């Protein structure tokens, strides 16, 4: 299955919280796996359940609201701050998200997301508020993200904004390439570099 992404048109889940840290996305006590799979069930674990009990979902948490679902998570600014745990990106991907939209991302989370073909889309504060307003008014509102042309559109209103992504990373995502494949391909250059006087 190709990991490549380009156009995603889907409903979204609006999470208004700011400074969502990776300890919230996946608490440390669930980092004990030795594979990349299965982290989705503990996504936002302590925001989702009372007393760590799956039989007691917290009613006011957005992921427990059946009206909201989709492949796009829309979150407040400074998403993914804190720990470097890639498990945060794995958990989001495993729970069915392909895109996270926010007005600001923490650096390590952004790299981890890109390395897992989870697209971080950074928008202005104003545009973020427009998305929140649209989806809260109508949970079936669709967002369209076009990676090749680098824009995000609120389908209901037609409002759109362009987003930045580095050219190299964009090529990787559009074609399903990993950084590691590239690095392995230049190993002779790396070996040569090691022998040079620096």
């Amino acid at each position, binding site marked *: 299955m190709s990991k490549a992404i380009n156009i995603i048109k889907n409903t979204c889940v609006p999470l208004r919280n700011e400074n969502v840290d990776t300890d919230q996305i996946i608490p440390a006590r669930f980092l004990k796996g030795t594979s990349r799979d299965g982290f989705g069930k503990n996504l936002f674990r302590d925001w989702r359940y009372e007393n760590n009990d799956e039989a007691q979902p917290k009613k006011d948490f957005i992921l427990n609201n059946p009206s909201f679902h989709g492949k796009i998570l829309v979150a407040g600014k400074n998403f993914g701050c804190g720990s470097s745990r890639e498990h945060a990106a794995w958990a989001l991907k495993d729970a069915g998200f392909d895109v996270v939209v926010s007005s600001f991302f923490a650096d390590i989370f952004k790299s981890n997301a890109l390395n897992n073909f989870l697209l971080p889309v950074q928008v202005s504060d104003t545009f973020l508020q427009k998305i929140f307003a649209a989806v809260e008014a109508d949970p079936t509102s669709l967002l369209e993200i076009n990676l090749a042309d680098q824009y995000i559109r609120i389908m209901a209103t037609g409002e759109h904004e362009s987003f930045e992504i580095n050219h*190299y990373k964009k090529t990787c995502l559009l074609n399903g390439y990993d950084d590691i494949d590239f690095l*392995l391909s*230049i190993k002779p250059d790396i070996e040569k570099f090691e022998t040079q006087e620096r």
Partner: protein
Amino acid sequence: MKSLFEKVWQKHIVQQIPDGPSVLYIDRHFIHEVTSPQAFAGLEKRGLKVFRPKQIVATADHNVPTLDQHLPIKEELSRLQVEALTKNCANHGVELYGLGHPYQGIVHVIGPELGVTQPGMTIVCGDSHTSTHGAFGAIAFGIGTSEVEMVMATQCLLQSKPKLMRINIEGELNKGVVSKDIILYIISKISASGATGYFVEYAGSTIRGLSMEARMTICNMSIEMGARGGMIAPDETTYAYLKGKAMAPKGEEWDKALVEWKKLYSDTDAKFDREINIDAATIEPMITYGTNPGMGVGVTGHLPETNEIIESERPSYLKSIQYMNLGAGTKIKGRKVDYVFIGSCTNSRMEDLRMVASFVKGKQKAKDVEVWIVPGSRQVELQAREEGLDKIFEAAGFQLRQPGCSACLGMNEDKIPAGKYCISTSNRNFEGRQGPNARTFLASPLTAAVAAITGEVSDVRDWL
């Protein structure tokens, strides 16, 4: 006209991708049990071996118990992760300082302590607090597991050059103010995301006057304002610290290294994208009241009133102080504390333990408070015992435990119970960080030590 960062960065560029990131060569790679198993598995799936095993140092720290480390780890999943690390290191020829090894400890404590961390290096680890090693004038930053795999496979990473920020701190520190207060103060001023996209250099007379361990505390928390890393130019303090360390260069190698290290400073005309100046005299002993490290005040201060917070940020502010069960506008001094945790890669080194011991000597902990002192490494633990600090702690009613990350993130048994308050020398006060529904006040070892004695958030200056 180059900055310290640029000097180190440029020496490590293998190639530059046009309109893309640089291929950055990595000198040292630290690994631990939590963020490495999937990287080893990925490597094996590709049929690869670790490319440069001698440039990796492994330890077990995140998951390990801090009592009875000679016994098998009781918690099954933690044990399996530590066993996986042991097996992976053996298969790939990577040196492991596991449980029971005299060099075992928190990865960011042992690197410097062993002299593995040196000026001018590029250093990575699957842990955001890798920024600690920047105290030696290294470019050191945390990475995710896919990147751990890349470094294992090729000793390189693809990185875009960050923006550069310099924070200058000048002048004498006030009585009772230590390096942890400096960094908590900076983060409270520029916020938990104020340095995202930047690498930070800390400079100025105050920084020059700090010991290596104090500098590590500052660089350690660079990530808590979003910076990928922090660094400090090496100087006589740095060389004196490294001289004689187990893995530091010796003899002629040392002399050669020193010549290179002395070139590592920002030229006077070096350019920074942002520069911040701080007067050390304005810094008080600090404490956090909220659920990100930017939510801090001087220990005699108040929580902000709701109307002092900009409107768009009010819901997050109110959610945070509700979690902490604290009221807007209230005083933080005098709040009851249930637990005191002195440890973590931020503050678990010898000087931290000595600072606590010299304050508590002859005093008794408050009745209802539980105090855990978790040294950063076996070497720190043994040194503390040799200096008799264990006796001082015992007499005060504190527990001196065995090394590991412990209650900083509660991956082992060391969790703070729901609803309880812990004053902690660690680096994060996120919701549930120290245990589900636990509440964290971040502070210096000195401020934590005073709270252990009084049972409440207190001003150390009242005791000096």
